[in-house]
Each structure stands twice: as C-alpha cells, then as structure tokens.
C-alpha cells in the first residue's frame, strides 16, 4: 500500500489509499450494471471522468466492465459526460 514512488517521467501522481482487493471479485453479489447509477457514480470523479484502476482498486477485468457500463450510462443520460451538471442533477 505504501510502495508509492515517483515514476520518473516527472508526473507526480497523487497518492490514493486504494483498496487492496477488487471489490467485485470479493463480493460476487455486486453486479456491474449500466443502470445502477449509484454504483457507477463511485467510479467517476467530479469532472465526470472514469477513475483509474490505481484509485478504484478494481481488477483489470472488472475495470473494463465498469468502463463499458459508464459509457453506456452516459449515452442514455444517466451519468454526465462532464461534471458541470453533476452537483444539482442528483435527482
């Protein structure tokens, strides 16, 4: 967890205390669904971007599924593309 070191190319990635295990591998009941807005909201940041794996701690397989679900949800306007309307449109 604390093995953070600068990656040499000058970009200083902020340290996040990421979960050690993928939450979808741990909890088999947790299904990734593009209609589940509350779940997907946890995987986008304030600007509406998909949060990287080093922050969310999901495994590669589930990160791909999450990313696809977010893209689907964006298409049918359940989730914003940009974060502007985020704060006031939370039903």
């Amino acid at each position, binding site marked *: 967890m604390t093995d953070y070191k600068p990656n040499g190319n000058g970009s200083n990635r902020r340290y996040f205390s990421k979960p050690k295990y993928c939450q979808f591998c741990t909890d088999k009941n947790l299904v990734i669904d*593009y*209609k589940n807005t509350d779940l997907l909201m946890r995987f986008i940041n304030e600007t509406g971007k998909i949060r990287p794996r080093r922050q969310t701690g999901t495994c590669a397989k589930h990160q791909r599924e999450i990313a696809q679900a977010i893209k*689907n949800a*964006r*298409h*049918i*306007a*359940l*989730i*914003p*593309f*940009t974060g502007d*309307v*985020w704060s006031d*449109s939370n*039903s």
Partner: protein
Amino acid sequence: MREYELVYILQADLDDATTDGIVENIETLIKNSNGEIDKVERWGKRKLAYPIRKMNEGYYVCVNFKFEPDQIANLKRSLGYNENVLRYIIVKKA
C-alpha cells in the same frame, strides 16, 4: 433468439395518452418481428444528466425481450425514425 434489453427515453412533455401509445407502438414493433417481450419497466420521468435536444427531462422505459440477432438492425432503424425517442440503447443480456 437472444435476450436483449432496450432502454429508451421519450420526450417528457407528451401527455399520458401519447406516451402510452408510443410505448405500445414499440412493443408491437418488437412483436411483429417475432420478438418476445419478457418485461416492460417504466421508470417514469427523470432528470437527464445533460440536455438532449434542449430538453432537461425524459421519460425512461426499459424493455427486456427476446429477439433474432439479425433483426436488431431493423429495430434500431425504426427506433431512430421515431421523433419522440430522444435516445435508446440495446444491450445483450449476459
């Protein structure tokens, strides 16, 4: 036959009768191409995350159905022709 899920957004400013009409219309559209409807779920009016065609609200409907894969393109085309459908998405069920 394969299981699909369709979510579409209708204009929110239509009256109830026309909304019901369009929902039924889309159901018959599926049935006419030998599709089977398992479940129709109406989420009702919801605020859109971003404006579509300058509208901030939409009427969401979710349909679970079985369909022939090679007919999906036709279904998509007819949904696209419908002026009142703001957006739709068809996904395969796992």
